[in-house]
C-alpha cells in the first residue's frame, strides 16, 4: 500500500484567543506539518505549549473567542482499504475538507467521529457511567454510520473487536472495567466509523508502565492498519515507543520535527529546547531546563526560547523559521556537547551586554 499524498496537511496554522481588555493569547503560531496514512506523528511538549489547542482546532472544538489562520486539509483517505474487501461501515473516499474553514455543521455531521476519531485522555470522562459499553457502542454506530438496524449489534461487536475489547465485557458498565479495558472501550468508540485519522490526546497519562505498553501497542496496530495517528503527549517514553516522527512544540511553535529514530537515537534533537527536554529524562541526565516557558499572552519578540537558551546570540531576536526540521538559528550538530541545562559561560556570546 502506498500513500503518495498526505492524509492531513497542516499549513501555517495559528490560533489566538481574544481576551478581555483587547489582550490576545497566542496559543499556536504558524504550525505546518503533513501526516500520511499509516504514519504516527507524536506532538510533544509541556502543558500549556499549545499542543492541545492545536488538536482542538483540528476537531473544530475551540471556544468562540478563538481566531484561526492557516489551513488543515483532510484528504479522503481512500488508501486505507486499498485492495481489500471493504468492511461494513468502512469509509469511502470523500472530498478533501479544510478543517479550519469548516463550519460546525460540517464538523459535527461529517468529520468528528466519522473522518477523525478522538481517543480521549480520560476514558472515564468519555464513557457514560450509566450505560453499558455495548449500549454506547451501538448508539455510536447508529449515529455515525448508515448501518441497517439489524446489523447494528454486529457492527458494534466489530468495533469492539478492532479495539481488542473483549466481547464478554460488552455488557459491563464503565466502572466495572479496569483502566485498560476502559481505555479500549473509548478507543472502540473512536473506531466505530473506521475514521482514517485518529487523534489521541495524552492517551497514556497516569497509566502504569504495563498499561502504557498495551495502549501504545494497540494504537500502533491501528497505524499499521493504515490509519494516520496524531498523538498528543508530554510523555517522551510513550512517543519513543510509537512515533514515526516527533514534533516538539514550544510556546505555540513546532521547534523540531524529526524522525523518531533520529530524535531518540544517535543524532538526537538539534533544537536546544528539544535537546534539553530529552536530556531531562531520568534515563539520561535528569537535569531540568532552567526557567519556565513564556506566557502565551506575552510572547517575547524573536525566539521564544532565548531567555532559557545558552546559545543565544543577536540573530535570535528574529523568529527562527522551521528549516530542515529545526526552528533555531544555531542548532546543535550531532555529537555536540550538551549545553542546555548546564550553565556555561563559554556559550555566552562575546560582547553580549544585556
Amino acid at each position, binding site marked *: 500500500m502506498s500513500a503518495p499524498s498526505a492524509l492531513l496537511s497542516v499549513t501555517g496554522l495559528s490560533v489566538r484567543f481574544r481576551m478581555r481588555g483587547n489582550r490576545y493569547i497566542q496559543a499556536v503560531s504558524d504550525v505546518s506539518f503533513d501526516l500520511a496514512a499509516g504514519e504516527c506523528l507524536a506532538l*510533544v*511538549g*509541556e*502543558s*500549556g505549549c499549545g499542543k492541545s489547542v492545536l488538536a482542538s482546532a483540528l476537531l473544530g472544538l475551540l471556544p468562540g473567542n478563538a481566531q484561526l489562520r492557516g489551513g488543515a486539509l483532510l484528504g479522503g483517505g481512500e488508501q486505507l482499504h486499498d485492495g481489500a474487501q471493504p468492511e461494513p461501515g468502512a469509509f469511502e473516499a470523500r472530498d478533501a475538507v479544510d478543517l479550519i474553514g469548516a463550519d460546525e455543521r460540517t464538523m459535527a455531521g461529517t468529520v468528528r467521529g466519522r473522518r477523525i476519531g478522538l481517543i480521549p485522555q480520560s476514558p472515564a470522562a468519555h464513557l457514560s457511567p450509566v450505560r453499558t459499553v455495548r449500549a454506547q457502542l451501538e448508539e455510536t454506530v447508529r449515529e455515525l454510520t448508515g448501518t441497517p438496524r439489524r446489523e447494528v449489534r454486529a457492527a458494534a461487536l466489530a468495533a469492539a473487536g478492532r479495539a481488542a475489547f473483549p466481547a464478554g465485557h460488552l455488557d459491563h458498565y464503565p466502572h466495572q472495567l*479496569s*483502566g*485498560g479495558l476502559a481505555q479500549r472501550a473509548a478507543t472502540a468508540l473512536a473506531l466505530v466509523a473506521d475514521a482514517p485519522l485518529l487523534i489521541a490526546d495524552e492517551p497514556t*497519562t*497516569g*497509566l*502504569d*508502565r*504495563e*498499561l502504557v505498553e*498495551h495502549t501504545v501497542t494497540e494504537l500502533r496496530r491501528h497505524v499499521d492498519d493504515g490509519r494516520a495517528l496524531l498523538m498528543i503527549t*508530554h510523555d*517522551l*517514553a510513550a512517543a519513543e515507543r510509537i512515533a514515526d516522527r516527533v514534533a516538539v512544540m514550544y510556546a505555540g511553535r513546532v521547534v523540531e520535527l524529526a524522525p523518531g529514530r533520529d530524535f531518540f537515537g544517535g543524532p538526537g534533537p538539534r533544537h536546544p529546547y528539544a535537546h*534539553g*527536554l*530529552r536530556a*531531562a*529524562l*531520568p*534515563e539520561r541526565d*535528569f*537535569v*531540568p*531546563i532552567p*526557567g*519556565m516557558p513564556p506566557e502565551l499572552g506575552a510572547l517575547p519578540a524573536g525566539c521564544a526560547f532565548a531567555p532559557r537558551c545558552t546559545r543565544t546570540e543577536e540573530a535570535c531576536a528574529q523568529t527562527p523559521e522551521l528549516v530542515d526540521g529545526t526552528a533555531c538559528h544555531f542548532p546543535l550538530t550531532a555529537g555536540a556537547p550538551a549545553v542546555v541545562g548546564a550553565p556555561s559561560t563559554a556559550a555566552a556570546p562575546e560582547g553580549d551586554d544585556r
Partner: protein
Amino acid sequence: MTGSTPAPAAAPGGPSRAATTPPALELRRITAGYQRGKPVVEDMTLTVGPGEAVALFGPSGCGKSTLARVAALLHEPWAGSVLLDGEPARGWRHRAPRAQRTKVGVVFQQPRLAADPRLTLSRLIAEPLRANGRGEEAARRGGELAEAVGLDAELLARRPHEVSDGQLQRACLARALALRPRLLVCDEMTAMLDASTTAALVAVVEAYRAENGAALLAVGHDRTLLERWCDRTVEQGGHW
C-alpha cells in the same frame, strides 16, 4: 492484592544513626479499603528510615495510592498500625493530632483536584501556615518556598485556572513543604508533567531533603524515574 514487603535495609544515615533514630515511617501490616469486604491493601508492611527515600512502585489499582494516603494520615486503615518517627498515629484526617499531621507533607498527581480554585498561588502555598496559626510567617516562608519551586511574584498573584499544570504542581509542592515536614509523600507527583518539569520538581524535593534530612515516600508507576530518584524501590503486586 496481597503481599508484604521485605524488611528494609539500614537507612542511609549509617547503622549507628539508624539504631538510635526511629524510622520516619513504619506501616505495619496495613489492611485498608473503601468498600466493606473489598480491601485494596492487605497486610502490607513498609518502613522508611530516617532521611531515607523509598519508592513504592506498582501498576494502577494495586493499592499504592491508598497506602500513600494511609501514610499521610488521610485514610484510616482497617487493620495494622502507622508509626511516624516511632510514635503510633493517634488519628486520621482532621482528627489527627496537629503535631503528627504537620510531620507529613503530601503532593498528589492532579494539582487541580488538590488546589482550592479561589486561592491565589501565594495564598495556596501559605495555607498550611495560616491553618496552623503561623500566619505571621506566611510572607517570609511563602517567599522562600516560591523561590525554591521557581514561581515569581507575577505567577503567585494568579489563581489555579490562570496557570499551567506544571506551575500549579510547583505551588502544591511548595505548600507541602511549608511546615517543614519530616516525611514527604509524593503520590504520582510528576505523572502529568513533561520531562523537564519532572526533573525540576524532583530537584526541589531533593534539595529540601538534603537541607532538612527529611524522608520520602514516592509512589508511582514509572520505574526508571523512581529508581533514579530514590534509595530503594519496593514493588507492589496487583493486576491491571
